């Protein structure tokens, strides 16, 4: 399913390992690239906005996207703490892409997940959140069918008008491995971008995440006897229904399944 005339841009960020905090390929962005390659093949364009370090080892995280089989990546240079939305929106206005793929939320910084929504608003495009796959793209009618990931492994099919912004969920297909050689050979096309400092965020205090307090089971008993019972009673004193016999059992089970809306 490769569309030659379709312009697909995938936005990538530098991820952060949850434990070691080393820079890495962001998981959702890698899935977005995988989906983009499936959709546009060689024509997939990749865009990153951020700082480019001169040190090659610092570029590894960014280059690992190139190692997925991309020849080049556009890079909009701006200070790391600046607001990327306006920079990217300005850049994309000239490109008029049909599909913009992003992750749901970044792995570092505020990670509010607002970027795809703001881009869609700036560019006047449709927005679909947490997609698992793009099924078809109909360039004649300017429509695409996408599969949205829902809780409990369910999927919803949506028809969306082109052009659109889509954020790719972890439920999408696993990204391919990144190969070191192509990653180092790939070209980074840098361009200086304007700097929009995020003044609001400069007042915020950022600390390491504290463990959230576990909610206690609060017993609002009025009498001592109730409190005593709540403190000593076994948690699993439900006392379920017991049925005997094949016919009665099967009937009782199917009644429960119907009540829960499963059959």
């Amino acid at each position, binding site marked *: 399913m490769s569309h030659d005339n379709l312009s697909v841009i995938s936005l990538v960020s530098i991820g*952060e390992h*949850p434990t070691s*905090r080393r820079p890495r390929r962001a998981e959702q962005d890698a899935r977005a690239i995988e989906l983009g390659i499936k959709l546009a093949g060689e024509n997939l364009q990749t865009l990153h906005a951020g700082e480019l370090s001169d040190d090659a080892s610092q570029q590894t995280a960014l280059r690992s996207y190139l190692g997925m089989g991309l020849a080049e990546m556009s890079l909009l240079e701006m200070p790391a703490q600046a607001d990327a939305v306006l920079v990217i929106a300005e850049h994309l206005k000239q490109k008029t892409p049909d599909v913009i793929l992003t992750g749901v*939320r970044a*792995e*570092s*910084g*505020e*990670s*509010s*997940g*607002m970027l795809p*929504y*703001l881009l869609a*608003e700036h560019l006047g495009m*449709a927005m*679909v959140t*947490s997609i698992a796959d793009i099924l078809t793209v109909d360039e004649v009618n300017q429509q695409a*069918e996408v*599969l949205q990931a829902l*809780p*409990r*492994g*369910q*999927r*919803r*099919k*949506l*028809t*969306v008008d082109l052009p*659109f912004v889509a954020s790719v969920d972890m439920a999408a297909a696993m990204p391919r491995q990144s190969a070191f050689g192509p990653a180092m050979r790939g070209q980074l096309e840098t361009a200086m971008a304007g700097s929009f400092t995020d003044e*609001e965020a400069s*007042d*915020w205090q*950022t*600390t*390491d*995440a*504290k463990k959230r307090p576990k909610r206690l089971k*609060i017993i*609002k008993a009025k009498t001592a*006897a109730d409190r005593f019972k709540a403190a000593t009673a076994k948690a*699993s004193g*439900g006392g*379920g*229904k*017991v*049925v*005997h016999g*094949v016919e009665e*059992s*099967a009937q009782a*089970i*199917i009644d*429960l*399944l*119907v009540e*829960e809306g*499963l*059959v």
Partner: protein
Amino acid sequence: MSELFRRDPRAQWIARNRLHPLHQTLVIGPVFGPSGLLRKNLHSIGFIGPNGLKRIDRSGASNDSGQGSRRAAAASDVILPLHQVLEPAFYIVVVLDLVSGRLNGHDKDTLGLAQQLANRNGGAGAVVAIAFGELKDDSLDKAGVDRLIHLNDEQYYHYNPEQRCNDLQVIVDDLQPQHILLPDSINGGGDIGRRLATKLKQRPACGVWKLNDDTVTCRGSAGKSDITRPLSKLLLVMEECSEPISETRHENIVISQDASQFSEGKLIDQGNISVDPNAIPLAEAGFILSGGNGINDWPQFHHTANVLGATEGASRVAVDDGNMPRERQVGATGTWVTAQVYIAVGISGAIQHMQGIGQCEKVVAINTDEGCDMVKRADLSAIGDSTEILTRLVELVEQRKQTINGGATNES
């Protein structure tokens, strides 16, 4: 009145003492004389009528509740005090997720935080809850809803975030709320909240988990950092951000509101598609059929799972014996599952297995042994041979499918 029975030692002493002047009034029930004969106390029968005369009604129509009902087992519900907001000084808007039409824990926590914002510093704000689509829950008043806007057109039964966002814009223009709260969830709240933020040109605080005086603490960096920032107008809050309301009742007054005019929708919902149940990761499957040592006929087990549309699970014994793959193992050593319905066939319930199914809502046990731990835990236990019960269950499900399909064709 407490449902607790309290002993009255004095009354008991009087009841024992036949010479006490009040003895006759306190003795109820059958009294046997020294010879073993039943003695009826005529003085305690009947009641005093309006003209002061004693009446005895032998038809049984009237309940002469003279002095007999001392122990009224009044299981009366405690009526919580009503929190009224007559003239709201300001509004706090909460958009509810309402998964399958009911409030979930996340919604309740969000309402709890909204009430905290409405009543802090002596403010008298009202919490306006906005519900889209079906609303089955009747406990909104106990969850902290002062005002309710319910948009219940046919279109809200589908996924239409653009229309909902437009409605919210109209409501926000109308009410000018001080804060707008949404659950930052994958059930719709996170999506609509971010759409609304772009439309209102407000920067939302996402992943809020704590409210301080004038600041909020949010989870950033995908859960690795805490950001303390000033309280913003739009808040996307996490689960357990606040205690849910439990000590007051609220008015739950319905404000009528019509769906806004909106026709620029770029998304069309084509409905959910059927997913292969075994492709769903076990940890997030909603309906699991799990097999253990008690199963003799494994092909039949797979067939049953297929007919029911359930994800397959297994106990450790079934996996060790090679009947099921390792990734299907449920329990502390396998996968911790969160299913809505968990059917355990021939699983006696080792403690590791019980830990693994701790978060399941409804557990059904099919087992030959009535005394096993799984039966004690289960909400419904079927005692009998698993092969026969599963065969009968498959027949019933297929019958039901046929009647539903037949009914559908008759109607159309």
